[in-house]
C-alpha cells in the first residue's frame, strides 16, 4: 500500500503542485489548508508523513507541531517543513522536532528523496536552499 502524505498548505496552486509531484512519485495524498484542519485530518487519515507549511491560518506550523506532540497517535509522524519564510524559521522548526525543512521554491526531486528517506528510516541531506534544480 502506498504511503500517505498529508500536505498542509494554504496556497491552492502549491497544494495542486505537490499533489502532482507526490502522486507521480507514487504517494497517496491528503490535504489540509490551515492548522486546525491539519490536526483533524491527521487524526482521521493517519498519514505516514506530514509536509507542513509554516505560514498557515488558524494556527501556524509551529502550533501544529506543538499540538501534534500532545496527541499520542500523531506524535510519531515525521514532519517535513516546506516554507517560504526566512530559512531561520525552518531551522527553528527542525530544532523543535521537524525532520527537515525545504525553502520554497523547493526542488521536487530532493523533496521526494527526503520523503522516501524518512519513510524508509534513512537519512538524506536535509537542508536545501531555494535555488531551483
Amino acid at each position, binding site marked *: 500500500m502506498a504511503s500517505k502524505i498529508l500536505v498542509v498548505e494554504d496556497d491552492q496552486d502549491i497544494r495542486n*503542485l505537490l499533489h502532482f509531484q507526490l502522486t507521480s512519485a507514487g504517494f497517496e495524498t491528503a490535504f489540509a489548508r490551515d492548522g486546525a484542519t491539519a490536526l483533524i485530518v491527521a487524526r482521521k487519515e493517519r498519514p505516514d508523513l506530514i509536509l507542513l507549511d509554516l505560514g498557515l491560518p488558524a494556527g501556524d506550523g509551529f502550533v501544529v507541531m506543538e499540538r501534534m506532540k500532545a496527541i499520542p497517535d500523531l506524535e510519531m509522524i515525521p514532519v517535513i517543513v516546506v516554507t517560504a519564510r526566512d530559512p531561520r524559521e525552518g531551522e527553528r522548526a527542525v530544532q523543535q522536532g521537524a525532520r527537515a525543512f525545504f525553502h520554497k*521554491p523547493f526542488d521536487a526531486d530532493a523533496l521526494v528523496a527526503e520523503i522516501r528517506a524518512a519513510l524508509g528510516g534513512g537519512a538524506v541531506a536535509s537542508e536545501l536552499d531555494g*535555488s*531551483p534544480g
Partner: protein
Amino acid sequence: MNADLPHMRGLARCSRRVIAASVLLLVVLLGGFAFVVVQSQRESRESLEDRFALRGSLAGRFISTYVRDVARLQKNEAQNSLSGSAVTRRDFETTVDGMGIHAAVLLDRQGRLLQVYPRNPEILGKNLGASYPHLAAALEGRIGVSGIVASAGRGSPIVAVAVPFASVEGGRVFGAAIDLETSPLAAYLENSIPFSAEGRLIDANGRLVMKSGAPFDGEAFVTSAAIVGTPWRLQLTAPKSTLYAPVSGLARWVPWALFAGFSVAAVGILLLFLRLLESRTQVAGRHREVMRLMQVQQRFIATTSHELRTPLTSVTGYLDLLLSGMAGPFAEKQRDLLLVVRRNAGRLLDLVADLMLAAEIDARRLKLNREPLALEDLARETVESAQPQADEKGVELVLETGTPANVVADRRRISQVLTNLVSNAVKFTPENGRVEVRSFRENGHAVIEVADNGMGIPEAEQSRLFDRFFRSSNALAQEIPGSGLGLAIAKQLTDLHGGQLGFTTSEGIGTTFRVELPSSQ
C-alpha cells in the same frame, strides 16, 4: 520626531517635572543666598557702628594713658626734687627748667602757694587750692587735670596737670602747665582715632582742648568717650558713607558681584542640564524610533520574501512539471520557449534572494555562522560549481593554490562572495579567455584573487563599481545579464567578516578582484 508616541509623552512628562523641580530649587537657592547677602551687609553695618564706638572708647583710654604717664613723670620729678623741708626759689626754677615746662606751681598740703614759675611774688602764700578744681583734686590725693586754662603768647592752648606727692611736711602738690602745641598729645590723638574720622578733645566747660582730622559735610556718626582721670571727653565723628563702605565703594559690591556670578553660573548649569536632558530624551526617542523602523523593515523583508517566493514556487514547480513531460508531450520549439521562461524564473528567484540579503544586511540582521574553514577548499568548491557556466561559454577556469590559509568565517556567505566574483569573471571574459582563481596566504591574510582577461573597468566607473544596481557601460553594451547587486553584496559580506574586497584593472587586459580575510593561521 513623533511626539505622539506614548514613550515620548512619558519622557516629556518626566522632563517637565524635572525642569519644574530644578527651577524651584534654583529659585530657593538664589533667594536664600540673596537673603544671606543682605543680612550680612546689614549686620556688617551694625557691627561697623559698634566697632566705631569701640574705637572711640579705646581712643579715650589711649589718651588717658598718656595723661597718666605725664602725671607719673611729673610726680616722680617732684618727689625727687621738691620733697625737702624748704624748697628755695632757685631749686624750684632749676627743677621746672629741667622738666621743660613753661609754668608751674608748688602748694603745701593746705593749698598755699609755696613757689610759682614764672616768678610772681605777689601771689606767693595765697591759697589757690579752692580756686582751681585740678589743684583741689590734687590736694585730695588724685591727679588733677584742668581744661584750657590759658593761652601762651603764641596762642597755643595750655592745660594744667597737678599731682600730689609726699614731702617732709607730709604732702605737697605740684602743678605744671602743658603747652599742647608741643606735647605728644597731638600725636596720641591723631594715632588713636580711625581714619576718616574727626576727633575732638573737649574740656568740662565745652571748650576745645585739641582736635585731629579734617571736618566734613554730610551724614555723620558720632561717638564720645570720657578720658578717665580728666574732665575731658573725646568726641569722634565719622561720615556714614565711609562707615558703610570702610574699604572702598567697590568692595561693597563684592558680595553682590559674587551673587550675580553665582546666579549666572547656576542658571547656566541648569540650562546645560536641561539641554542634556532634552538631548537624552531625544536620543532615547530616536533610538526607539529607529528600533521600531528596524522592526518594521524586518517584517517587511520577511513578508516580501514570503509573498514573492510563494508564487515563484508555483511558477517554477509547474514549469518543471511541464518540462518533465508529465502533462503530455510538446514540440521542441515549445520546449525552448518554456526553457527561456524557466531560466528567467530562476533569475527572478536569484534577484529576490539578493534583494532580501541586501535588505537583511541593511537591517543589520544578518548573523554570521562562523566556523574554521580552509579557504582553499571553498575556492575549489566554487570553481567546481562554476565550471559548467565556464564550459558553456568556452572560458578556461583554473584554480591555483599557494600557502594554505585558514579563516573563521560563514561558509555560505564566503561561498557567495566567491561565487559572485567567479560568476562575474566568467560573464565578462570573452570566449577562449581565461579566469584564474588563486588561493594563498600573505602577510597574515587569507587571500583569494579572481583574475579575468575581460575588457577591464573604465576609470570613470571604478569608484561606483561596488554601488548597488550599478552596471558598467561594458556590461550594458554587451548585454551581459545581471542586477548590479552581486558585487555590492560581495563587498558587504566581506566587510562583515572584517575583510577587504578590492580590485586592480586595466582596460582591454583584464581585472583582478582580491578578497582579503583575517587569517586564523
